[in-house]
């Protein structure tokens, strides 16, 4: 091992002292920054992962849309299902309605499902908390959980559904009565927006309410496992007419995903400042060390050490603190992630806000998804920042003139 690395290690871990105060505090600062980055980025990744599952589970991996709707949708479905990599396709109609129960109105989005094919594409059935998807027919609906709670409807109740067509009918002096439908299920997906404003009915019910005839608004597509969504969307587009387009779920929700990524990027950037502040503390400690060890630096020159190696000795201390702090931070971060739900439960018990958390996030457990790339970025950036923290002290040490260093008091 080169002498400057050996001496750097010895200065951090002197003989006979396992963990000196300077090393402990500097390492702890870096470790806390890394742990926080890992925890927050993993939890945010967990939320994003859950949202991805939720989207794919309710709408498939690829969405086909057309301006003005798709007329001969059975033919389009057949074409799509013949594309390699496509497992199944299901048509849907979707628009806003007004529903009313016990004089309480709500304005959700009604999504009409093709009962013959919907379960081959979506996994809506697994989100039904009360009732069953099998009970759905042209005179019934399934309400999302928060919507049902807000109007007070339960399984078995009858609600009124008003179509947007009512406006054009009224303009033509026609009478248009609301549809009376039974509630046959309550569905909770786990996303606040969907759970507060979505109603599921049959495709025919939606077509009737919107006056679509045999037209549908779009087709959801399920892919075989491992098939790339973008590649599949391109293959589907190749067999579709130009006015009907297939988009991967990432393209369909690109705005939402952009905001999600922006949030993650901003939080990463802000939390990185903890590591930067810790690095400043390393710089400050190493600068003090340079002043304290001025005569030793003079001695090293007298023994034949070159200024670049003297600099490397101090820079290496920043590097070692970075490596050690990163390792400790990863252990701390992953340990905290492993017990995250216990921590959340404890906080909720103490603050008595358990219900609020459930209402807004709907996750029974705090999600976590750690991306290897994110951890890699955290490791590389932290070690680089810590090493850079040693640069200024290293430069000061290298600039010391041996004679002046040896003479210093």
């Amino acid at each position, binding site marked *: 091992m*080169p*002498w400057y690395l*050996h*001496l750097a290690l*010895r*200065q951090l871990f*002197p*003989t*006979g002292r396992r963990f000196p105060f300077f090393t402990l505090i500097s390492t702890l600062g870096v470790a806390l920054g890394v742990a926080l980055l890992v925890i927050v980025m993993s939890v945010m990744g967990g939320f994003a992962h859950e949202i991805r599952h939720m989207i794919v589970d309710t709408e498939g991996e690829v969405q086909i849309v057309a301006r003005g709707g798709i007329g001969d949708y059975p033919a389009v479905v057949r074409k799509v299902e013949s594309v390699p990599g496509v497992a199944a396709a299901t048509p849907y109609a979707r628009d806003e309605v007004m529903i009313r129960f016990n004089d309480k109105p709500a304005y959700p989005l009604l999504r009409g499902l093709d009962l013959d094919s919907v379960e081959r594409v979506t996994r809506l059935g697994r989100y039904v908390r009360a009732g069953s998807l099998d009970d759905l027919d042209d005179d019934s609906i399934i309400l999302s959980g928060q919507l049902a709670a807000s109007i007070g409807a339960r399984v078995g109740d009858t609600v009124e559904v008003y179509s947007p067509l009512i406006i054009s009918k009224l303009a033509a002096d026609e009478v248009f009565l609301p549809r009376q439908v039974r509630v046959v299920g309550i569905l909770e997906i786990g996303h606040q927006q969907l759970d507060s404003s979505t109603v599921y009915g049959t495709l025919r019910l939606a077509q009737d309410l919107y006056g679509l005839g045999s037209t549908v608004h779009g087709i959801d597509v399920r892919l075989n496992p491992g098939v790339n969504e973008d590649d599949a969307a391109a293959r589907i587009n190749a067999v579709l007419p130009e006015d009907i387009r297939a988009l991967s779920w990432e393209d369909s929700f690109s705005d939402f995903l952009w905001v999600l990524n922006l949030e993650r990027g901003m939080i990463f950037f802000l939390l990185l400042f903890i590591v930067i502040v810790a690095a400043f503390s390393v710089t400050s400690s190493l600068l003090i060390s340079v002043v304290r060890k001025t*005569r*030793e630096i*003079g*001695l*090293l*020159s*007298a*023994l*034949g*050490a*070159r*200024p670049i*190696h003297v600099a490397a000795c101090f820079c290496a201390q920043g590097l070692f603190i970075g490596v050690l702090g990163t390792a400790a931070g990863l252990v701390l971060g992953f340990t905290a992630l492993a017990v995250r739900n216990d921590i959340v439960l404890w906080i909720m018990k103490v603050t008595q806000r358990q219900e609020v958390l459930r209402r807004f996030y709907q996750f029974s457990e705090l999600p976590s998804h750690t991306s290897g790339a994110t951890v890699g970025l955290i490791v590389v950036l932290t070690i680089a920042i810590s090493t850079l923290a040693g640069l200024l002290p290293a430069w000061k040490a290298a600039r010391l*003139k*041996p*004679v002046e260093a*040896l003479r210093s008091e």
Partner: protein
Amino acid sequence: MSETVLSARGLRKSYPSGDALLEVLRGVDLDVAAGESISVRGVSGSGKSTLLNLLAGLDAPDSGTVAWEGSADTGARRRAAYLGMVFQSFYLVPELDAFANVLLARRILGGVDGAARARARELLKHVGLGERAHHLPSHLSGGERQRVALARALMNSPRLILADEPTGNLDEGTGNGVVDLLLGLCLSANAALVLVTHNAAHAAKTRRSLVLHAGRLEPPFTA
């Protein structure tokens, strides 16, 4: 004729003192033969340490030259192999034990192997610290620290040792022991020695005594 390991010609060095320049060295000439021991005495502030720093290549003269074995290369890389230095304040690295301090000289030169470790142990035994090899400097007495510094100076088998008042921080008895050890080690290693000292008795033990007076090296005045 013995080979000259150190040759200085016309060394001049001055330092700013207020508005004026204080000329510390005014043309110093010195030749040191292989294995020779020379003492340099002089009053405080006469420029003894300045001269030693110039001879070690740690500082540059205003004019004049320093050559080691005829070569003007006195850079860091050559210094590690050619020169050993001993200081008044020992300058041991506090985080390293005695053995690691001795071995540090070889680490800087490069190539620490079993033989180097064995030599470091042998040198520590030679200076009477074989049993204290793994003691930190803070656990050693002043005399013991200086003996570690002597072992470190000899680690790379240098041709020349420059000692700057090595007994300045030691009591008389310990100082005498250290000087005797230093002279003995240089003799057995055939290393030349330039010993800067205030002590006339220590100076008398070297083969040649010089006095730095008015910026020049002169033979000692004898009544």
